[in-house]
C-alpha cells in the first residue's frame, strides 16, 4: 500500500471525537436554522449515539413517524400489541397469482384524477409522490396526460411509419422493433404543465403529488431513434425537424429538432421491465430524456422528417408560455431543475417534537442533480441534503436530511442545483422573470409550513 490509500485519510467520528485541539462540532449540532442536522448523521453514529439524549430521542436513533391528518387513531398512541402468533401464521396463505397487486391495505396510494367532466378521457392523473419512497415510480402510478383517452391499440395492427425527407419510407411492426438492439435509460418524464398551480396568486392546499405529481420516473427500454432514422436514410442537408404523431383519438403530435433525435432519443417498448402500459403509450412511445412530456409522444405511429416545425396545436396554442411583454416562449423543451419535499408535506402530520427525516425528490432535464439544499427557516439558512445513489442524468434523485424539530413553526424548502450550475429559482424570481400567465414550466422552490401543532400546509416563501 502506498501513501495514497484514501482510507487512511478517513477519520472515524470516534477518532475525531477523541482528537485533541479545537472542539469539532458534534454530529447532532444543527447545521442550519430551524434544527437541520448533518445529512450524514447516521454515518457519524459512533459519536452521535452518546448525545442522542440531547435530541430527546431515547435509547436509539429512530426517526419519529409522520402521521396522517385523516388517521383514525390519535397521534402518538401505540396500537395494542398483536397476538404472539397472528392468525395468518395459522392458516395457509393465498394462492399464487399471475400478476401481483399492491396490498389491499395500501388502497389509498392511487393516482389522483382531474379531467374534464364532459370528456373524461381529456385530463390528467397525478402520481402520489407523497406516498412513495426511492426514485422509481410503479407502473400503475405513473402520471397520465391524455388529450382524448387511452387508445385500445391492437399491436398487430400498429405500425411506425418513418417518411418525409428520407431515402426510403419505412414501416416497422412491433415485432420488428423487438428484434432491434435495445438500450435502457432510467429517467423521469414530466408534463410541461406540472406544478402549474404555483402560478396562482394564492397557494393551493393539496398533497404534494396533487401539485407536482405530473412527473414520474421509470426505467425505459427500446430502440435508439438514430438507428431507425439511419435505416430510412434521412436527407442530411434538408432534414431539420421530426414531426412525431401518436395513434390516439387526438393524434397528439410534436415537432422535434432532428439533432435531438440523434442525441439520446429512443422508441420505448418497455417500462420498468414490462411492456408499456396502455396509458403510457402501448405498444411504443417516444422517449426524449429530460424533455417536456408532450414531446415523448405516446402510441407513436408516425415520424415525418421535415425542414420546418409543423406548428401543430400542441406546440403553438398549447405548451407555449405567455410572458408579460405579450410574446410567448415556444419550443421550451428542456425541463429545468426542480425539487420538492415529499415528507413532511401537506396531509402528513408531525407527531410532536423530535427527530424527523425530511425527504424529497429532485430532478433536472439538463443532466444530473449536483446537490439539494434544504431550509427549515423559510430560506434564511440552508443545509446540504444527502443524495441517494445512484445519481443519474435526467432521473429522479432522492434526497434526505435529518431534522430536530423542537415544535416551533417552521417553513421547509428544498432547492436543487444541477450539474450545469442551474439553481432552482424562488417563486418570486420566477414570477419576476416570467409573469403569471405562462401556465407551463413552473419550477420554483416549494414551501411547506409546519405549524406549532404539527400541521403541514402549502405557503409561498
Amino acid at each position, binding site marked *: 500500500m502506498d501513501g495514497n490509500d484514501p482510507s487512511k485519510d478517513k477519520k472515524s467520528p470516534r477518532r475525531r471525537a477523541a482528537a485533541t485541539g479545537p472542539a469539532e462540532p458534534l454530529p447532532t449540532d444543527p447545521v442550519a436554522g430551524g434544527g437541520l442536522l448533518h445529512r450524514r448523521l447516521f454515518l457519524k453514529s459512533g459519536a452521535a449515539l452518546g448525545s442522542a439524549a440531547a435530541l430527546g430521542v431515547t435509547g436509539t436513533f429512530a426517526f419519529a413517524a409522520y402521521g396522517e391528518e385523516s388517521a383514525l387513531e390519535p397521534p402518538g398512541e401505540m396500537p395494542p400489541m398483536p397476538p404472539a402468533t397472528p392468525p395468518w401464521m395459522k392458516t395457509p396463505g393465498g394462492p399464487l397469482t399471475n400478476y401481483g397487486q399492491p396490498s389491499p391495505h395500501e388502497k389509498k396510494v392511487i393516482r389522483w384524477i382531474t379531467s374534464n367532466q364532459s*370528456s373524461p378521457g381529456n385530463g390528467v392523473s397525478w402520481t402520489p409522490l407523497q406516498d412513495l419512497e426511492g426514485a422509481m415510480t410503479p407502473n400503475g402510478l405513473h402520471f397520465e396526460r391524455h388529450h*382524448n383517452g387511452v387508445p385500445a391499440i391492437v399491436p398487430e395492427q400498429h405500425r411506425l411509419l*418513418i*417518411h418525409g425527407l428520407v431515402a*426510403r*419510407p419505412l414501416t416497422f411492426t412491433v415485432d420488428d422493433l423487438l428484434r432491434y438492439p435495445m438500450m435502457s435509460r432510467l429517467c423521469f418524464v414530466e408534463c410541461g404543465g406540472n406544478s402549474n398551480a404555483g402560478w396562482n396568486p394564492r397557494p393551493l392546499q393539496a398533497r404534494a403529488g396533487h401539485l407536482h405529481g405530473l412527473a414520474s420516473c421509470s426505467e425505459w427500454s427500446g430502440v435508439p431513434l438514430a438507428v431507425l432514422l439511419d435505416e430510412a436514410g434521412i436527407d442530411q442537408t434538408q432534414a431539420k425537424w421530426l414531426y412525431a404523431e401518436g395513434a390516439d*383519438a387526438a393524434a397528439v403530435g410534436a415537432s422535434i429538432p432532428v439533432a435531438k433525435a440523434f442525441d439520446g432519443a429512443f422508441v420505448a417498448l418497455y417500462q420498468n421491465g414490462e411492456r408499456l402500459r396502455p396509458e403510457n403509450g402501448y405498444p411504443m412511445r417516444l422517449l426524449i430524456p429530460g424533455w417536456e412530456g408532450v414531446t415523448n409522444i405516446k402510441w407513436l405511429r408516425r415520424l415525418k422528417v421535415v425542414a420546418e416545425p409543423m406548428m401543430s396545436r400542441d406546440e403553438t396554442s398549447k405548451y407555449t408560455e405567455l410572458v408579460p411583454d405579450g410574446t410567448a416562449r415556444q*419550443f421550451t*423543451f428542456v425541463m429545468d431543475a426542480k425539487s420538492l419535499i415529499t415528507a413532511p408535506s401537506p396531509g402528513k402530520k408531525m407527531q410532536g417534537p423530535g427527530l424527523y427525516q425530511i425527504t424529497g425528490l429532485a430532478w433536472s432535464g439538463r443532466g444530473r442533480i449536483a446537490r439539494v439544499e434544504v431550509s427549515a427557516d423559510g430560506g434564511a439558512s440552508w443545509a446540504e441534503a444527502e443524495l441517494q445513489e445512484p445519481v443519474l442524468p435526467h432521473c429522479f434523485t432522492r434526497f434526505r436530511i435529518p431534522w430536530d424539530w423542537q415544535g416551533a413553526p417552521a417553513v421547509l424548502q428544498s432547492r436543487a442545483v444541477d450539474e450545469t450550475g442551474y439553481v432552482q429559482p424562488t417563486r418570486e424570481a420566477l414570477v419576476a422573470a416570467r409573469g403569471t400567465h405562462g401556465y407551463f414550466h413552473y419550477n420554483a422552490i416549494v414551501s411547506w409550513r409546519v405549524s406549532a401543532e404539527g400541521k403541514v400546509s402549502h405557503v409561498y416563501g
Partner: protein
Amino acid sequence: MSTDKRNIWVGAFVLVAVGLFLSRGADRIAETAPPRGPGLGHQVSLETAAAWDISIPPDGHNLPPGSGTVAAGEKLYLARCINCHGKRGRGLSAEELVGGVDGLTGDYPEKTVGSYWPYATTLFDYIRRAMPQDAPLSLTSDEIYALCAYLLFLNGVVAEADVMNAATLSAVEMPNREGFVRINEMAR
C-alpha cells in the same frame, strides 16, 4: 511507359485512393454513425406514406382539395361544436375559441384562435385530427374548411364572404403570427 507499367501505376493509385476513401469513411462512421440495426423496416410507397400523413404545415402544402364558407361553417358549428364550445366560440366546458381582443399583456389575457394562434393551417390540422372529440377524423374536407372559415370570421380575421380552401387558408395572416420566441437552441 509500357502498358503493364502504366497499369501498375494506375493500380497503385487506385489502391491508395480506395484506401484513403475507406479510412476516411471509417473515421466518419466511427464518429457519427450509431450502431446499425438489423434493417427490418418495410419500404412503403410514397402514396402509402401520403395516405397516413394528416399533418398540415404552415405553408399548407398538404391541404386537401375542397372548400367551405362561413355560412356552412356556422351551420355545422351549431350542430357539432356548440355543446362544448358555446355560442359563437365562447363558454361551456371547452376553452374559448374567440375573443381576447384586449391583447396578451393584461391581467387576464385570453389565448384564443384570434388572439394567440400563429397559423391558420393549424386550425385545419387540429379540427381534422381531434374534433369533434366524440368522432375525430370524421369530418369531410369541405366541412373542415367551412369550420375554419367560421372560426376565423368570428375572430375578425376573414370576412363573412371569404371562402376557405387550400390556397386561401394558407394565405391567411394570423394577428399573433410574430408572437412566438423559440427558446431551445436546437429549434432556432
